[in-house]
């Protein structure tokens, strides 16, 4: 599947889904007017990839500094597919990045982490400038 790269806008995150390498990344902020419209195609392509690509390992990195509740719901949907894939025996790692001292994002990560039992969920604190 072709790599999906979408540059960030003030309201939507930068997207980099490298299906061949099994690396997925969302970064920036996410509060699009219509979260379903933004995340729908991404969810669809992830599902297609998971169905088609056997058991190649997947690393899904999230480095959001803000997301609204609709985006949280969309993330939940993405994570559910990953957890299901992990349940089917695929090696799935979710890297949840948050800035040092950003307890809001850290807490959200912890909340998401509790939903995973098969996939590996890493909470990663970043201290450098940037995301």
């Amino acid at each position, binding site marked *: 599947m072709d790599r999906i790269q979408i540059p960030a806008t003030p309201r939507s995150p930068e997207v980099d889904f490298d299906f061949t390498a099994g690396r997925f990344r969302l970064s920036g902020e996410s509060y699009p007017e219509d979260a379903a419209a933004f995340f729908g195609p991404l969810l669809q392509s992830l599902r297609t990839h998971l169905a088609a690509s056997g058991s190649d390992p997947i690393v899904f990195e999230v480095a959001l*500094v803000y997301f609204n*509740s609709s985006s949280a*719901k969309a993330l939940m949907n993405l994570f559910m597919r990953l957890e299901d894939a992990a349940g089917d025996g695929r090696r799935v790692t979710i890297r949840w990045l*948050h*800035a040092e001292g*950003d307890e*809001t994002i850290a807490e959200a990560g912890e909340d998401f982490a509790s939903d995973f039992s098969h996939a590996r969920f890493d909470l990663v604190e970043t201290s450098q400038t940037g995301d």
Partner: protein
Amino acid sequence: MTPDPAAEVALPVIGSPARKRSLRGGGPLSGDDFLELAGFTDASSSSPGTMRPGALRGSARGRDLDSLAHTLFLRIYPVIAIVVLATQVGIAWVNYNDSLRLYTERAHLLVTLTAQAIARPDWSERPDVYTTQVQALTLDPAFRFVRAWNAEGGLVMSIGEMPVRRSIELIRASAAITLAGQAKPVGSLTLGLSTESLRANAEKQALLAVGASLVLMLAFVLTLHANVRKHVLAPLKRLLLAMREVEHKRWSTVAFDGAIRASNEIDVISSAFNRMVEGLRAGDEAKQLLAELELAHAKLAEANRQVMESIGYARRIQTSVLPDRMALASAGLDVAVLWEPLHQVGGDYFWLERLGDVSLILVADCTGHGVPGAFITLIVATALDRVLHERGLRSPAEILAALDEMVRVQLRQDGRGSDSDDGLDCGLCIWDPEAGRLTFAGAGLSLTSVTDTGVTRIRGAKRGLGYPRHGSERFSVGNVTLDVTPGDTFYLMTDGITDQMGMPGTQRRLLGHRGVADILLRTRKEELGLQIETLEAELAAYRGAETRRDDMTLVAFRPTQRV
């Protein structure tokens, strides 16, 4: 075409006999006629999109291009004609004089030689001496007459006719017949030669000169005319036509093909003209685009004004659905509210109500903001009213569960097929002043308390109310009951309060619950209304240049007395 009915204003037709076609005046039609023939008339200049009549029109129309040719011909022709004629006449005159001098010399020579040849003392008596000699003179082609006189003046011999009067066509030469040693001549001889051939020559030359001049003139005029037409007039006419086009905002440029080769100057002018046309075209297009843009902007502004008016009206409705902020004043509670939707109306909702002995404080954050969020708040408001007054529920946990069920029914999220993926976070407290006890239950929303011992955050259930769910899964959360000490302050807030984007250090990050709690703790001694104002100011300070991300609602309440 000029609407002049006068008959003598002949319609300009090519080859019209009314046009004078002299050698110099022939050739191209005048500028006006040409343009009219080409279909460009000025009569309907009021048609839309045309320029006001201006300087360009005058230059493009009023001038007769032929005047340039006329001027050239009229000024140069006489000068050259006079010079050529004068030169030729001068040459003819010099030639004539030379020939005349030669003739005269010849006549003298002949007559002198003959006189010497016949000079004898008795020459007049001896025809054998002079007849042959004198007759020989008639061999000269210009010979007219000869007369010989003896010493006494008697005519000895005469050949030819001597004119009585002098004539310019005749050269006379006389010689005395003298003998060596005698002073007195023994006779005289007069010869007349005709200069008719000379005159004929001179006339021929003069005619030749005039003819040559005329031929030269003709050649000059034709060449000049052809060149001026080809290199000047035709290109200028093209330029004029293009100018007329441009005047009517038809952006035509000038290009010269093989038949017309503009002179360098006109070529330069044409290039400049083309650049100007391109500039005008670009400017005109920009102007049109700008006009369209302004129109679109005006439409947008109008649409925006209507939407804003509509939303302003919606805000009045939404604020009238919200409770009176003093509703719990008589229940022994200090209450301060910060309700600030991101866009006039929003998905944040709060409710304050005395229910008999107890008071209810509720804060909800519905999905979305703006108008969609506001719709959900109305559903929540209606559902809450029914839960409280039809079903009479007083337990926060039960109220949340009931709200969840009603919202999902309302939005057909209970398996009856609906597009709605909406819901709400909600936190609510029941304050029982009698018991000095506060009961809290939350769904995605927490209760923050600031007491002497510090800040505590009591988190509700992780998931919110509403949203489609699998099967008959029900919302379930427990109550948290707190014993309240006077002075304890409680806060229910939506995530719009804590989700303030800012740059506290080197990284952009959200303020978060801890950041808000720090502010509340720092200002805990302030009167509630003032504290909320301080909080709002500090949130703005934290955001700096960042915009708000969400609706903000915070309800602060502080029991004032223990009943």
